[in-house]
């Protein structure tokens, strides 16, 4: 496993070859689910990154919008302007394909940042709890327990509400995305803390940690230099599965109207806008953003499942 995780300073070519030959890469190549899922994720991520280049319209530039284009069904020319849109347009005449690309950007950015933040908080608190034990561990893990009794969405809404109350109105839209990230991260760190603590408790008693203490290494070098690299594989698995959950959490919050503002719509905001038109026949405004969200969350989740199996030697 270790040759797949980090092999610093080897010649690049042999390293690639070594990686390709490793059990990890082999298990990837022999799992069609993993290959397809990662392909979908890569396409969606690239689409999000290069949205300004790919999108035929900029849906947030009022100058390019034509209200006459509103409610154009997918693939058919508009009755007034004769313009054709691949996935149709919404009520404002915005190209749905373009809004999805931009929405994907927001969704992925919020999801990835939230997971990263949750990971940093969770890993540090989990390591500290496991290494020091005693009342520090009790305190951290009880906070985690208490937090788990509230649904994640509720915690996120609470934080969102407080943040909204204390930020001045003119900054609210700009702040919204960052508040969203913090809200999701704070409802998600518990998982990381628990997993890291569990793994670190096992590692802590291994003899290499004692050897490091014997040399005279301090607590923090031992925690981060010795224990941390050995508990990273479960963290990687949790991070992947959390990413899917964070993207869904963001979509849920945005759907509820407490997330990304309509000026910077995420996939969730798009779905919220679309659901108003579902029963009046304009199904495409809801359908395509929802499909994109589904494809993204499902692929990331499947990738996480595969990763868990591939990194677990017992299931091989």
């Amino acid at each position, binding site marked *: 496993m270790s*040759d797949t995780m980090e092999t610093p300073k080897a010649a690049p070519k042999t390293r690639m070859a070594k990686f390709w030959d490793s059990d990890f890469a082999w298990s990837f190549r022999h799992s069609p689910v993993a290959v397809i899922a990662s392909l979908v994720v890569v396409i969606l991520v690239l689409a999000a990154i290069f949205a300004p280049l790919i999108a035929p319209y900029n849906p947030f530039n009022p100058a390019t919008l034509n209200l006459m284009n509103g409610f154009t069904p997918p693939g058919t020319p508009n009755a007034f302007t004769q313009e054709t849109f691949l996935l149709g347009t919404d009520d404002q005449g915005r190209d749905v394909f373009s809004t999805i690309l931009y929405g994907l950007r927001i969704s992925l950015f919020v999801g990835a940042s939230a997971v990263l933040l949750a990971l940093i908080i969770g890993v540090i608190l989990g390591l500290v709890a496991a290494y020091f034990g005693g009342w520090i561990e009790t305190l951290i893990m009880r906070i985690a327990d208490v937090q788990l009794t509230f649904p994640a969405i509720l915690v996120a809404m609470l934080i969102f509400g407080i943040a909204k109350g204390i930020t001045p109105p003119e900054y609210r839209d700009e702040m919204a995305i960052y508040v969203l990230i913090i809200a999701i991260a704070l409802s998600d760190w518990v998982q990381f803390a628990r997993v890291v603590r569990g793994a670190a408790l096992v590692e802590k008693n*291994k003899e290499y940690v*004692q*050897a*490091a*203490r014997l040399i*005279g290494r301090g607590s923090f070098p031992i925690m981060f230099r*010795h224990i941390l*690299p*050995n508990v990273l594989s479960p963290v990687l698995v949790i991070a992947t599965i959390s990413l899917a959950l964070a993207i869904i959490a963001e979509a849920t919050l945005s759907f509820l109207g407490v997330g990304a503002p309509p000026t910077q719509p995420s996939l969730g905001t798009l779905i919220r806008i679309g659901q108003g038109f579902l029963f009046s026949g304009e199904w495409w405004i809801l359908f395509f953003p929802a499909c994109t969200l589904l494809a993204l969350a499902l692929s990331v989740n499947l990738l996480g499942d595969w990763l868990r199996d591939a990194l677990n030697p017992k299931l091989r």
Partner: protein
Amino acid sequence: MSLLTIQDLTVEFPTRRQLFTAVDHASLSVEPGEIHGLVGESGAGKSTIGAAVMGLLERPGRIASGQIKLGGEQISGIDAEAMRGLRGKKISMIFQDPLTSLNPLFTVREQLVETIQTHLGGTEAEANKRARDLIDRVGIPDPDTRLDQYPHQFSGGMRQRVVIALALCTEPDVIIADEPTTALDVSVQAQILDLIKELAQERQVGVILITHDMGVIADSTDRVTVMYAGKVVESGTTAQVMGQPQHKYTKSLIAAVPRPTLKLHRFPQISYGGRETRFAVDDMARHWPKVDNDTSKPLFEIRNLTKKFLQKRGLLPWDRTYFTAVDNVSFDIHAGEVFGVVGESGSGKSTVARMIAGLYPVDGGTIDFQGQRVSDLSNRSVQDEYRKNIQMIFQDPYSSLNPRMRVDEIVAEPIRHHRLMDGAHIKRRVDELLDQVGLGSGAGQKYPHEFSGGQRQRISIARALATQPRFLICDEPTSALDVSIQAQILNILKDLQEHLGLTMLFISHDLPVVRQMCDRVAVMKQGQIVEVQETSELFANPKTEYASELLRLMPKLDDLSTDGLEAG
């Protein structure tokens, strides 16, 4: 006719990269009432033979060729259903760890009765009576109450007796015992082996005893088969194979066994298979700081050392209960000597080592090193100096090296931490050290998992020597290693003591190893030192009853060939 015959058995494990042959055309047979020893080092394929006979080969393992016959009937290659009828009934098994081979949720009675009824049928009353007789027979006192207890209420040795009763309860023809005493203390080991021997005789059961321990083989088997790398290299009566080994591998194996009666200068370097790895102690000695082993004053003075572990937590101090692991222990270690501590598991010997290493704070008493009070962990400057001077070699070479660190980083860590050298010098020093312990300087670029157990222990030694310490703590340094690797490592430790003037604290449960290594020995029992003696004196005239009991139970190995051994 033989009870069990294995002919030309080949077991293969196809893996992604290559076909791994675990057992290569092995043949052996077991007679009724006979104990047939199967000996070899780890990876020799001895457990795989046991699994193949039981039909318990783990996927993707398969029998590629050969036959296994039980009482003239072929049992290899029969379907799973038929095999299940035989397993447990005609052939049963005793596993290494009695803690995991019994179901913790059922009482001993329930487990025995279920097995008896499944295989022999009959009423519950009959099964109950049978269970009681068996528990009585395997030497568990007070069978009526013990039967209704759960496995965790039994000690390790008693649990293994229950496992033996379970193996015997269906009147099997053959029992496969896979390292049945490896997890047990010496005193218990002797009793369990005697019991197996007795029962095999009494019930005319054939036993295959799989072990890596030559002492167990010499003491309790009738015939023995020696395996190396999946092949049978030698087979015959125990007296013949142990006394006049023919094959070069058997000779090297027997020569590497530590003897309780004969102190060797060095273990003979008869290597077989693996390449010779040198240990360049002379190179090392050239750069080693001259130590002045002043013998007038002890290097270590340890007085009234005590360690208590919290057994029951409680908010209030009087609610807590403690377990005294080390109780008022005092001894001296003189400069340049190897001081041994022996005892059974739980005697507190490792706790003493860890307190001296500063890994556990002391709860009472003092440790003085060269006149400095080192048991007081708060004095930073004394601690820093002390840590440069002591190092430790751990028991398990698989967990004592960080798997995510490169070997050169592992060896360099102590030097870096104590800021003994700057960058370029560290690299040269690390390469030198790895070269001197016989790994070659290229080893630094690899990760620990690329090395074998013995090589890893050499990495541990290189790390321990990096700060040029005066004192080395060895906590069971060879108990996880094969006997031939053990001989190599013990030779290295002897070299270190002799040529570098290192003082050592040597913790072990293995008396013959202690005999080879130590100048003086402390015998520990339940947290206390019962006897401290010169090693030769202890082995010749033990003063206390406990020490003489330990010596009595130790395998004697008198029948082993002494070819190529020289006393020192």
